[in-house]
């Protein structure tokens, strides 16, 4: 590794430093605010360093990582997401009443982000593995974070414990599938780099299938989606946001790169399998959300469907010039919208002494807190893909990629799924217009919500800055 490579790696190094530094800081002085500033400062530094460190032309740093525009785009997105999640976490854990110490959560978040950045640059299975597991193991802990303090008999700790254990066990099983798949490919080709398969292979196809299973689990695609609602429900809200955005989008970025480098979807069987998973996710995800009464579970099901939409793009890779653009835009839209949704959940559902995640809590929100209500409407419209929101631009790109690649049947399923989705998004809006619940307060980080909502609209109306900056692989 030469100096140029080292320079290109600066953001990652800074992040690692941030994690370690925050941990050490916490060891010397237990102070949530300090840890928070250290975390956000580190991230900001990493973000700024990107402008300087990112090589102008695609650069291979060790066989594992490739630093290019694709990495840059996703790195910025991930760091910004992580900063938003950090803001949410600061609010969330502070209200926890001091049972759990907040400082370590920043360390874990930084580690997660590090994993995500590794995934964004991964061009090698080892990098994929390292990034993925960095994220996974850190998020197991984050999911079960409320168990950190003294054990108390209450639902929050019980739920998060349950969620943590489920996530750990299931995710490890899925990792095993993934690794076994990689193992098969390695056995066949003798290389761990992202590259097209050699023509005559026996083991690679089953290997790819096993790999797909592992990936599908992490992306919570039907029928590997069972874990996600439970984890979303049990995990603290910022962590749920993390699981919903970073850990899915980062892996998706890596998979996208592999699919592109490996020209994988030329393999008919695999393409069919992905198409089946996409269709199932779009339909079943939306159906499961249909009459869900728990907002976090509903968001979980909705994100299952959204990942299904995203798979359409994956299928279009290689057939449609727009596919990578579409993926990038949609990931952005999905991240911003989902973060907004979870930030809102934090504001509305966790305002009272006891968190209440029933949809009824949103009753009369538009009248109680007009700005928050309007933001919620915007977020829901964005999730539903209605124009003038970023969600629409994302959906538009997906449709464009699908049309360009001629994936008519999947587009049909997409339309049906979207139609089902409209029902429950609108249902929340209708609840919001209805009567207010007896005890409903508003609290938390409103400015984060407003900021995200504003971003949704601004980029929805004038997405040109983003679109002109989309990465090319």
């Amino acid at each position, binding site marked *: 590794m030469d100096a140029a490579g080292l320079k290109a790696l600066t953001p990652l190094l800074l992040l690692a430093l941030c994690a370690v530094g925050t941990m050490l800081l916490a060891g010397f002085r237990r102070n949530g605010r300090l840890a928070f500033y250290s975390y956000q400062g580190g991230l900001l530094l990493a973000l700024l360093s990107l402008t300087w460190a990112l090589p102008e032309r695609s650069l291979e740093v060790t066989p594992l990582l490739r630093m290019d525009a694709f990495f840059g785009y996703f790195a910025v997105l991930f760091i910004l997401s992580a900063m938003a999640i950090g803001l949410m976490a600061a609010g969330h854990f502070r209200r926890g009443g001091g049972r759990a110490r907040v400082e370590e959560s920043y360390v874990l978040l930084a580690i997660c982000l590090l994993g995500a950045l590794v995934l964004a640059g991964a061009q090698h299975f080892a990098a994929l593995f390292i990034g993925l597991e960095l994220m996974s193991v850190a998020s197991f802990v984050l999911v079960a974070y409320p168990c950190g303090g003294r054990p108390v008999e209450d639902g929050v700790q019980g739920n998060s414990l349950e969620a943590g254990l489920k996530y750990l066990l299931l995710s490890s099983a899925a990792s095993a599938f993934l690794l076994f798949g990689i193992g098969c490919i390695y056995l066949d080709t003798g290389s761990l780099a992202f590259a097209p398969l050699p023509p005559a292979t026996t083991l690679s196809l*089953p290997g790819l299938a096993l790999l797909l*299973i592992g990936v599908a689990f992490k992306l919570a695609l039907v029928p590997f989606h069972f874990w996600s609602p439970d984890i979303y429900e049990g995990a603290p809200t910022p962590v749920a946001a993390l699981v919903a955005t970073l850990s899915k989008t980062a892996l998706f970025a890596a998979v996208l790169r592999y699919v592109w480098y490996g020209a994988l979807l030329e393999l008919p069987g695999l393409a069919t399998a992905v198409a*089946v998973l996409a269709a199932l996710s779009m339909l079943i995800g939306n159906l499961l959300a249909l009459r869900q009464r728990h907002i976090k579970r509903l968001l979980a099901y909705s994100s299952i469907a959204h990942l299904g939409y995203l798979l359409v793009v994956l299928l279009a890779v290689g057939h449609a010039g727009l596919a990578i653009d579409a993926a990038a835009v949609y990931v952005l839209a999905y991240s911003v919208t989902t973060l907004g949704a979870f930030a809102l959940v934090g504001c509305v559902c966790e305002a009272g002494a006891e968190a209440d995640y029933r949809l009824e809590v949103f009753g009369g929100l538009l009248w109680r807190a007009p700005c928050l209500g309007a933001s919620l409407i915007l977020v829901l419209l964005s999730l539903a893909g209605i124009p003038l929101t970023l969600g629409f631009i994302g959906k538009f790109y997906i449709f464009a990629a699908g049309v360009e690649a001629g994936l008519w049947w999947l587009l049909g399923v997409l339309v049906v799924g979207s139609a089902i989705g409209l029902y429950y998004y609108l249902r929340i809006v209708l609840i919001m217009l209805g009567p207010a619940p007896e005890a409903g307060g508003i609290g938390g980080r409103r400015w984060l919500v407003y900021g995200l909502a504003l971003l949704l609209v601004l980029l929805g109306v004038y997405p040109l800055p983003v679109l002109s900056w989309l990465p090319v692989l």
Partner: protein
Amino acid sequence: MGAWLAWIPLLPLLSSLTLLLLGRRLDERGAALFGVGSVALAALLSLVAILLFVVSDGTAWGGQALSWFSALGLEVGFSLYFDGLTAVMVGVITGVGLLIHLYSVAYMSGDDGFARFFAYLNLFVAMMLILVLAGDFLLLYLGWEGVGLCSFLLIGFWYRVPENGYAARKAFVVTRVGDVALALGLLILVQQFGTLLIQDSVGQAQLLWADSDWPFWVALLLLGGAVGKSAQLPLQTWLPDAMAGPTPVSALIHAATMVTAGVYLIARTQGIFLLAPDVLQLVQLVGGLTLFLAACSALVQQDLKRILAYSTISQIGYMFFALGAGAFSAAVFHLMTHAFFKALLFLAAGQVILSLHHEQDIRRMGGLLRPMPFSALCFAIGCAALAALPFTSGFYSKDAILLQAYAHGGAGIAWWLALAGAGVTALYSLRLFVRLFLGECHTAPTPDNRWPMRWPLALLCLLALFGALIPQPLSDVFVSVPAGEQHVSWAVHLAVLLMPWLGLALGLWLLLRGEDLRRRFAGGILARVWRTGWGFDALYNALLVQPLSLLARLNRRDLLDLPVGFLAWLSRTCHQGLSRLQNGRLRQYVAGIVWGALLVLAVVL
């Protein structure tokens, strides 16, 4: 021709609008002033127009007052046309209309809808005038539908009684069926000629359609419109029910003018009908059948106004018969005389009904000769004209019809029916008069000494007697039908002359001797069938009304909504089923992964 012709319909129209908007502010005197005054002015104008027309040698005037619209491929204007036929119609409408308006002032006095009544009546006169003055089929159609609307409004004038509303709706809907046929006929004209000017299209038809199927279809569709408006078979069922309206309305709309619009239409489009001899045959047959069936029905009705209604249907049947037989001017002649004597009968009947406190059942009448001599006189004259007794106006017109028809086509079924009908007509006229004025008195009348009502009646009596003397400038209107190869023998003349007398004789015989026969007949099945108008109402009810309303009832909630509901249900069910899988059990989830893995492997490999 000046645009001032347009003022003939415009005057009543304006008056109608005024009455509609300001009616509440006006007292009866003011409303009557507007209502009658406007029609009087229109009548005056019409008179001037007719005189000018006659003076100017009977050349037709046409002209476009204003453009209505000009679309891509069709131009329609508010164009007027005035020829002999128009002159007759305008004269009848404004003349008889004026008398009936005058009569109504007294008849409707005290009704809380006085102004509204005159507003509607004025509107009707306006629309009827538009209908006959129109030089464009679409304008004619405007009048055509407009009179239908007024008929609807006036039948339902006493809207608080639900039956009136139903009768009104029935009248409008049944005639609308005919209107649709008429509209379709117009569509063919638009398609073929690109114009709706009546004279142009008829002229072009004669030029271009010498041997094609078009005249057949157009004439058939126009006939459809005509039978609807004129209450001929098979759309005659609405007219008897239409008697629910005030009696002056029945006189004006449902006897003298609107119901003859069909006759006017066919006469006006003679050129097209002559190209379609089959349809002309059909017109004759329709007329013949209608006149006979309706006459039979009139024979057994118990309601005074229904008798007159069936009689109207029957008399219009004569006109249709005449049209079909090629005796166009005879038909128009009869149209005029019928307007006189039927208006007379209705108005006289109105007087009787008013005197008997709105009693209309003739079984509760009788012996009114002494208390109501003037009404009796009117009735006598009217019935005589209706029965076509010599030297009344009806005698001349009916004779003309029967003889000319024979001359043109000989004695077909229709002709025999028409001949027999003349006998039946005399028979029911006699019955009507006898039941009302002779015999013993059942209900004591209040005396009929309202003079405002009397002198219109007196004028109409004169017209019914001597109206046949009014010359009709029709010679230039109709193409003379090349016929007359049938020699009209003296036997035919005699038969036509004697037929009414035969009916009268039969009536007298039945009255004096046939007590038993009458009673048996009245209880018989034939009488019952006749009384219900040959069961057409029941037939339509069973064939159309019931199935349609059943369908409407069954499908009130829109069956096409069911698939949508089904989809919603399906989604909900799927949601419930899938949610049940999401049971929180760790090992179940692992099993899910395993099944998923098998699925993926199966698809990939």
